[in-house]
C-alpha cells in the first residue's frame, strides 16, 4: 500500500501547475448563495503571483460575484479567500470589509460599468486613489489645514505618481479635464490607472475590454502586459473578448452556473470540450459526440 501513495505523491508534484506553486490568491471552496440561488458553487482556484489569470464563462456564470467576494463587496456564504503578499504577509479576505481589502490587502479593482468620479478631473481621480497615504501625510487633516510643508511634499509625490500612470495610459494631455468628458476607451484606461495608483498587489479587472475597438483592445493588452512586467502586479480579469484572454493570460479559469468547469493554460482550456459546449452550445447531431467525449473525460478523471 505504501508504494501506491508514493507514486501518487510523485504524480501530483509532477503535474502541479506553475500558478499553484506561489499563489497570490487562493480561492478555496467558496459558495455564494442569494436566497435560493447559488451564484457560486464550491469554487476553488489559485491565481499565481505575477500571472495574468483570466476568469471566463457565459453571462450569468457568477464571475462578477466572485470578484465581489474577493473585493469584499459581498461576504461569501462559505469558503476561504487567502491573499498572500510577496513579503509573506497573508490576509483572509472573507473576514475583511471592502475598503480594508483595498487599503490593507492591496487588492484593487475596476468595475463592469465604469465607476469614475465623473465630476472630478482625471488628475483628481488619481489623487483620490492615493487617499490613505495622503491622509497620513496630512496628519489626518489637522496638519494639512494648518498648511505645514510635509503635506505639500507628499502631494507632490502623489502627483508624480499620477503623472507616471497618466503617461502609461496615454491620458497626460487630458489630466485637467473632467473624467466624465473622456471617451469610453479612455475612461476604461483611467479606471485601470486609478486602481494602479493604490499600489495594488493584485489587480482585478471586470471586463476591461468591453466596448473597446480593436485598436484600443490591442493597447489594453500592451498596458496589461506592461503592468505585469514592470510593476510586477498580478492581474485577475473577467473577460468576454477571447482575443484578449488567449493573447495575454497565463492561466484561465472557466465558470458555468457558478461551478468551475475548466482550469488550465489558455491552449488547454480552448480545447476543453466542456468549455466549447458551455460557450457555443452544441448542435443536435453533435450532442452525442460531446457526450461521448465528456464520458471519456469523466472516465479518465475518476479511475
Amino acid at each position, binding site marked *: 500500500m505504501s508504494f501506491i501513495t508514493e507514486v501518487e505523491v510523485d504524480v501530483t508534484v509532477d503535474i502541479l501547475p506553475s500558478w499553484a506553486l506561489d499563489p497570490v490568491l487562493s480561492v478555496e471552496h467558496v459558495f455564494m448563495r442569494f436566497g435560493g440561488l447559488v451564484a457560486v458553487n464550491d469554487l476553488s482556484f489559485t491565481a499565481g503571483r505575477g500571472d495574468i489569470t483570466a476568469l471566463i464563462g457565459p453571462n450569468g456564470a457568477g464571475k462578477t460575484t466572485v470578484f465581489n467576494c474577493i*473585493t469584499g*463587496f459581498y461576504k461569501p456564504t462559505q469558503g476561504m479567500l487567502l491573499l498572500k503578499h510577496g513579503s509573506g504577509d497573508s490576509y483572509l479576505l472573507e473576514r475583511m470589509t*471592502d*475598503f*480594508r481589502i*483595498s*487599503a490593507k490587502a492591496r487588492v*484593487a*479593482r475596476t*468595475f463592469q460599468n465604469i*465607476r*469614475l*468620479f*465623473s*465630476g*472630478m*478631473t482625471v*488628475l*483628481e481621480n488619481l*489623487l*483620490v*486613489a*492615493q*487617499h*490613505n497615504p*495622503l*491622509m497620513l501625510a*496630512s496628519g489626518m*487633516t489637522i496638519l*494639512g*489645514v494648518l*498648511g505645514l510643508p510635509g*503635506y505639500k511634499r507628499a*502631494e507632490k509625490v502623489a*502627483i508624480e505618481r499620477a*503623472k507616471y500612470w497618466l503617461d502609461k495610459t496615454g491620458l497626460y494631455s487630458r*489630466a*485637467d*479635464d*473632467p473624467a*466624465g*468628458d473622456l471617451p469610453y476607451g479612455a475612461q476604461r484606461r483611467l479606471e485601470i490607472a*486609478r*486602481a494602479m495608483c*493604490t499600489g495594488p498587489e493584485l489587480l482585478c479587472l471586470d471586463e476591461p475590454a468591453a466596448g473597446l475597438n480593436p485598436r484600443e483592445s490591442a493597447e489594453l493588452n500592451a498596458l496589461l502586459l506592461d503592468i505585469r512586467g514592470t510593476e510586477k502586479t498580478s492581474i485577475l480579469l473577467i473577460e468576454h473578448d477571447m482575443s484578449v484572454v488567449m493573447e495575454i493570460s497565463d492561466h484561465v479559469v472557466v465558470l458555468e452556473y457558478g461551478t468551475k468547469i475548466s482550469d488550465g493554460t489558455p491552449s488547454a482550456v480552448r480545447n476543453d470540450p466542456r468549455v466549447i459546449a458551455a460557450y457555443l452550445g452544441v448542435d443536435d447531431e453533435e450532442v452525442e459526440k460531446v457526450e461521448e467525449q465528456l464520458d471519456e473525460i469523466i472516465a479518465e478523471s475518476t479511475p
Partner: protein
Amino acid sequence: MTSDATVTKHGPDIPAAVKDAVLAGVIALGIFGPLVGLKTEQNMSNELVITTRWGLVAVIVGIVMAGRFLLTTFIWPTIAVRKQRDKAPPSAGRLAFLASFKKWFPSGSLVFLFLYPAIVVYLLGFQGSLKWVDNFGIQILIYVMLGWGLNIVVGLAGLLDLGYVAFYAVGAYSYALLATHFGLSFWLLLPMAGILAALWGIMLGFPVLRLRGDYLAIVTLAFGEIIRLVLINFRELTNGSAGISSIPKITFFGIWSFDVSAPNNFAKVWGLAMSSAYYKIFLYYLILLLALLTAFVTLRLRKLPIGRAWEALREDEIACRSLGINTTNTKLTAFALGAMFGGFAGSFFAARQGFVSPESFVFMESAVIVAIVVLGGMGSMIGVALAAVAMIGGTELLRELSFLKAVFGDNFDPDQFRMLFFGLAMVLIMIWRPRGFVSAREPTVFLTERKAISGSLVKEGHG
C-alpha cells in the same frame, strides 16, 4: 398646453393662447375661488361666518389669465430664441468679462463686507445704521455661515441633511445654558459649543450614515424634530417653550463690556454717546470673521485628501470603497464638521438675541438652509453666499413694505407675505436654474490649466 407648441416661426398662435389662458383661468377659479373668495372669520360668538371677496378672486384670476397668455405668446418664445442663441459659444469679450468678474468678485465683495458698517454709519449715523447692520448684515451673515457649514455636508459630501438646525440649536442652548448658569465667557463657550455640536453630529451620524439618499434625509429630519421636541418638553433644563432669556452679551475679548451698567462699558471707556450700535457693529465683525473662518477651513479642506474624499463620495461611494477609503469615517467627519460650524453659529445666535426658544429651531429653518445651499449651487462658496443674500436679504426687504398698509388696510401684515414670496422664489429659482446659481465645479488641483467643470457632470450624491 405645452410650451414648445407655441414656439413656431410664424409667431405665436393667438387663438390657442387665448384658449389656454381661459383654461388657466378656470383652474385658478377652482383653486382660488373658495379659498380666497369665501373667507371664514369668527364672529362675536365664536362662530365661523363666511365673508365673500369675489372682487379679489376676479383680480387673481385675471392676473393668472394674463400671465398665462403672456407666457405662451411672449415669454416662452423669447426664452426659446435666447436658448438657441446661447448654444453658440460666448464671445471672447464676454469670456474675458466673466474671467475678470470671477477673479475680482470674491476679493471685491470681501472689501465691501469689511467696509459695510462704516458706509452705513457714514450715510445714516449710528442710530440709523442699527437696522442695516443688524437685520441685513448680521442676519444675512448668520445664514451665509450656516449655508457654508451645511455646504460641507450637502454640497461636498452629498449627504442630504434635513435636520441641520438641530446642531444650530445645540450650539445655541449650550451657550445659553452654560452662560446663564455658570457665567462662563462667550470666548470659552464658543469652541465648546462647536465641540458639543460636533459630538452630537457624530452621535446622530453614526447610526444613520449607513442609510442612503432620501432615507438619510428623512431620518435627519426626524432627529431635528426630536431635538426640538425635547427642548420643548424637557422643561427642567430648557424652560420649555418659554425659552431662556437674559443670556449674557459677548464682551470685547474680556476687555470691554457692552452691558450698559458695567464699569468697563465700551462707550463709557471711550467717552462716546451711549448707543447699541457699537455692540451691533462688533457683532457684525464677529459673525463676519466666523463666516470667513468657515470659508477658509472649507477651502483648505477641499484641497486636502479628506475634501477630495468627500467629493469622491458624492460622485460614487462604491468606487471610494474600492479605493480603500473608509466611507463611514469620511461621512462622519463631514457630518461632524458641518455640525461644528452650525454649533458656532448657534452660540453666536444665542448671544446676539439674548434669548433662545425652541421656536427658532423649527424644521422650516433647516429647509431654508438646505434651500440656500441648493439654490446657490452645491459645493460653491460664492453661490451659497449669493443665495443667502438673495433669499434672506430679499425677504428682509419685504419687511420694509409696510407702506402697503396704506393700500391694503391696517390688517395687512407684510410679514405673512414674506414667507409666501420666499417659497415662490424657491420654486421659481429651481425652475430657472435647477443646479443653482453657480453650478460649475472648480477642480482642486491641476497640472497645466485650471478648467471649471460643467455642472451637468457633477453628481449630487445618493447618501
